[in-house]
């Protein structure tokens, strides 16, 4: 398990983050790219299905109130080649989710990156660089 995580972490280091829209169907216009939100998330569900991946999670604010967020991600095909699998995020998992929030104030985001409690990261809406081959 540990070696798998290490492998994933090593894989991540090789990636440059690119902000290309990765699916023609869903551009980035819904998101406020002038903002970054960093959320301590408790995963509720990962829907790892083509053509789009959707993660649902809860976030506790400073007053202890819990709210539900959703984040969009590229397709499972693209994510699986970047170290993801359908069990990357399981219900109850704690993870830091970084992304661009919806412009309209809804609790939705385009996920750019995940940071796990042990420090390893996984890229979200990104494109592997030529140098990652």
């Amino acid at each position, binding site marked *: 398990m540990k070696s798998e995580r290490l492998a994933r972490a090593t894989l991540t280091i090789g990636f440059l983050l690119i902000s290309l829209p990765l699916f023609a169907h869903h551009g980035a*216009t819904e998101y406020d790219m002038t903002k*970054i939100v*960093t959320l301590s998330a408790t995963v509720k569900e990962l829907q790892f*299905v083509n053509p789009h991946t959707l993660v649902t999670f809860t976030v506790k604010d400073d007053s202890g109130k819990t709210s539900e967020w959703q984040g969009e991600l590229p397709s499972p095909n*693209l994510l699986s080649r970047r170290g993801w699998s359908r069990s990357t995020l399981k219900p109850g998992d704690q993870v830091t989710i970084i992304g661009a929030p*919806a412009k309209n104030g*809804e609790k939705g985001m385009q996920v750019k990156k995940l940071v796990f409690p042990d420090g390893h990261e996984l890229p979200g809406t990104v494109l592997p*660089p*030529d140098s990652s*081959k």
Partner: protein
Amino acid sequence: MRIPPIVSLASAALLLFSFPLLAQTPTGIPKTAHTGDLTGVWYPSSVNTFNFIWTDAQGQHLNTLPLTPWGQEKFKGNHPIGGEYTALTSNDPNSECLPPGVPNIYAHAYPVEILQVQGRAIMFFEYGHFVRQIFTDGREHVKDANPTWMGDSTGKWEGDTLVVDSTGFNDKTWLDVAGHPHSEALHLVERMRRADHDTLMIDITLEDPQAYTSILKTQRKYILKPTWNIMEYICEDTRVKFDEFEKKVGAKGTKTAEATVESGSSQSIVGDWKGTITLADGRSLPAAFSFSESSNGLLTVADPSVSMNLQFRNVAVAAGGIVTGLTSDQVNFLGKLSADGKQITGDIILPSGTGHKISMSRP
């Protein structure tokens, strides 16, 4: 006249390989010599831009395409995603899971497998699982072809370059994700070659006198992925109710974005940092990052070949040492401070579609 270096390089390489290798069959029908090998799974290079960079025949960059009045009329009716149109309001035919046509298919960040069998080269695109057959057996285009989404393609080898000639397209697809139209008169010539073993270059030249007053050129670069295979991709799969999510985040809202940022960390990154930046094209250069008390950060690259000064604002260190910042031009910095506070690693994400990686430490 400014010629993008990649185009001039390509032209030089094309000159080197432009000798035809046509063999004659006993019947006198020219049979193309099978001299090149483009087989493999290829992934779009990170230097490709989502929107194509179009040039004229001389390689001069075109800011606006030379549309005919017919083309202008069509273009007005196309509403690509971006600007005022979202996935919900755009009329991009891609949204309906229909084939994107060529060259639009090259805009999508999915791999393509090229297979060469007797008399054919086959492009098997992961995106939508669309298949394109390129007949290399010397045949002519289908006469009076009923127009199709992916067109009628014939190919001949010129040395190790496969020259693909395509006609017979319907006019239901867009040339690119910017919504540029084309007519059924679209005639496409693609020169596909390995610039080196791991690099596939596709030089695209098209003419469409109904839509454009002159020819257009663009180029795509692909990287060989020897261990990959084409995976299943079903565009029509609606198990994830993505439309509902899209309606939620895409609806015109009156609320202001709730920036639920984590409470800050006590770790300070103020001061000077030195290290390297690895550009999207793989070059590694010395760079410096300087953070001020007022949450600003200046990233400079100390190399004469690259002019880069990025002024980040709202630089914040969140719990777990996650460092974020933004420039006024929407360049993102997503970094991480090591537990001992001595190292910052992270990613610089440009809105143009290129990104870089940095690694910094206190001098």
